[in-house]
């Protein structure tokens, strides 16, 4: 199977005055077309940075990123924006919908930047919203929707322009476990029925296991598996997070 995403020896260094922080230290990662991959690791392991690279939101300090065979590491902001708009659909932990717009307008927005005509945009947005079973909530604003519904609007927005890759950054992080698992089921179904490539970042083992494959990230590198210490660290983090939410 062809690689749709390839990260080759990717370094990302943040210059914090006197200190240099290496978020990624020679990361190598391949995502095959049609694959459902989970990137797992503790906080500070560089998984969000990796996700930003794959999503063309950021370029590496050194190294190369190939999206569908094209090197994006040297591209300018406008080109990156166009690639994001055409090839990538984002799903964020906090949904990131524009609160001043209705669900349908939110889904139509990425299509606007693709210069589609209004009627085309409306049709595609309606299709996507019906697919996430929100056909009857199209004219509601995010504030009038539950968390699970908002995340489904975000999924519809990510799907609207039929992207090559869906990037989900902790898609269940802001949802209760029941709603979270229904969103995951939805992603799973999407992957199985449409063959959509999905890359999901999570620090939750259970969530990660919904994917076909798990890439473990530690200290800005892919490791074969997480050692016991790290696994414990993640568990403690998860418990603390649940406590905070409660």
């Amino acid at each position, binding site marked *: 199977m062809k690689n749709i995403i390839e990260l080759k020896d990717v370094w990302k260094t943040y210059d914090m005055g006197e200190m240099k922080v290496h978020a990624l230290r020679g990361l190598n990662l391949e995502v095959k077309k049609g694959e459902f991959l989970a990137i797992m690791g503790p906080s500070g392991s560089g998984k969000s940075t990796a996700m930003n690279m794959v999503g063309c939101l950021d370029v590496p300090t050194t190294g190369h990123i190939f999206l569908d065979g094209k090197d994006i590491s040297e591209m300018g902001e*406008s080109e990156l*924006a*166009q690639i994001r708009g055409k090839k990538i659909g984002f799903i964020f932990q906090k949904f990131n919908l524009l609160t001043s*717009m209705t669900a349908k307008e939110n889904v139509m*927005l990425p299509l*606007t*930047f693709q210069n589609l005509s209004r009627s085309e945009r409306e049709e595609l947005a309606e299709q996507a919203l019906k697919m996430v079973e929100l056909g009857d909530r199209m004219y509601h604003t995010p504030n009038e929707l539950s968390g699970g519904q908002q995340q489904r609007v975000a999924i519809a927005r990510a799907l609207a322009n039929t992207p090559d890759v869906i990037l989900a950054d902790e898609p269940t992080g802001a949802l209760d476990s029941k709603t979270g698992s229904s969103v995951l089921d939805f992603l799973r179904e999407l992957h199985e029925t449409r063959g959509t490539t999905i890359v999901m970042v999570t620090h939750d083992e259970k969530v990660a296991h919904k994917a076909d494959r798990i890439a473990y990230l530690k200290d800005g590198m892919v490791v074969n598996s997480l050692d016991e210490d790290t696994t414990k660290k993640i568990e403690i983090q998860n418990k603390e997070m649940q406590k905070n939410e409660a």
Partner: protein
Amino acid sequence: MIKDYIKMAFENLRHRKVRTFLTLIGIFVGIAAVVALVSLAQGFQNYLDAEFKELGADKIIINPAGSSFGLNDRTPDPLTKDDVATISAVKGVKEVSSYSFQVSTVKWGRDDQTFATIITYPLDENRNLLEEITTATILQGRKLKNTDGFKAVVGYDYLTANRFSENLITGKKITIEGKEFEIVGINDKIGSQQDDESVFITENAYFDIYPDEDKNDVGAIFARVHEGEAPADIVKKIEKDLRKQRDVKEGEEDFEVTTFEDLIQSFLNIFNIVQVVLIGIAGISLVVGGIGIMNTMYTAVLERTKDIGIMKAIGAKNSDVLLIFVIESGFLGLMGGVLGVLIGAGLAKAVEYLGTNAFGTELLKAALPWWLIAGALGFAFLLGSLFGTLPARRASKMNPVDALRTE
């Protein structure tokens, strides 16, 4: 796409109603002031143009030097009937007439009195030249005749003005310099208080009540040129002959020869300077308004950092973000412009109403040509876009990762 950005801009402005309105005040005050000023100035210019057409381009005015706008200033050597004869003899001059005037108290009834211009002119075959220039037409009664003794034709205000306790009609009497005059005619409205309070009497009566006046002197002389003659050419000829007649050297003339066009032009020049100064002052408030827009847009960019991050993540290019914010600030300006035009037009109309009804003047007219409205709206949009460019640039240059991270 632009249509969607415009819709987005309106939605965003609508969401921040109070802030939008406060920002708008800064713009519409300036626009309203400019629109009102230009409207009234244009109305005044239209009035002058119409006046010029009515007076005709074929007339020349001869005044004693330095008296163009100072009515009762008789210090320079006055013009004389000999000057009238000289001008009549100039080739190309069709007809010549002159008039004299004094300012006196006019009294009538129990306690009514007013300070008015008492005018006389020869009631010969050339009288129509003066009647054209004063634009006086008889509303009630009849014109003055040579055989009239102490009879007068008076201005429109004596018939109508509220400031008198008793208004006058033909047959009533007024007293000037102790002599009683019977009103035989009342002129139609001319437009200014000075004109509408004037009293016209015969030359005999005039020199009777002003015995110190030299019968050979005249206040001003008017000439009409033959058809096809250029007034400017005739002006030169008159100047040359008058120098000879009055024995003065070129450059030391104690008289002024001007066409009506010159007169109106010199007046317009002064008026235009006043206009530019006033609009300049109003312009300062527009700059302040623009800075208000800039401030509002900087706040909006800051508030919507996350939204900018989201839009960039889902495919908005830097240029898209720039356009979205520039359009928003442009429309902020345009909305201020719409309000400003409405308020400015209302203001100009109110001044016109006040002018006509409280001061009885025809000079204050509000004109709203299409170019003023379109210009004001276009300028307001431009102003908004211009002052929104810097905030919009900041928005467009945001790093999507950082923008997404803000809460």
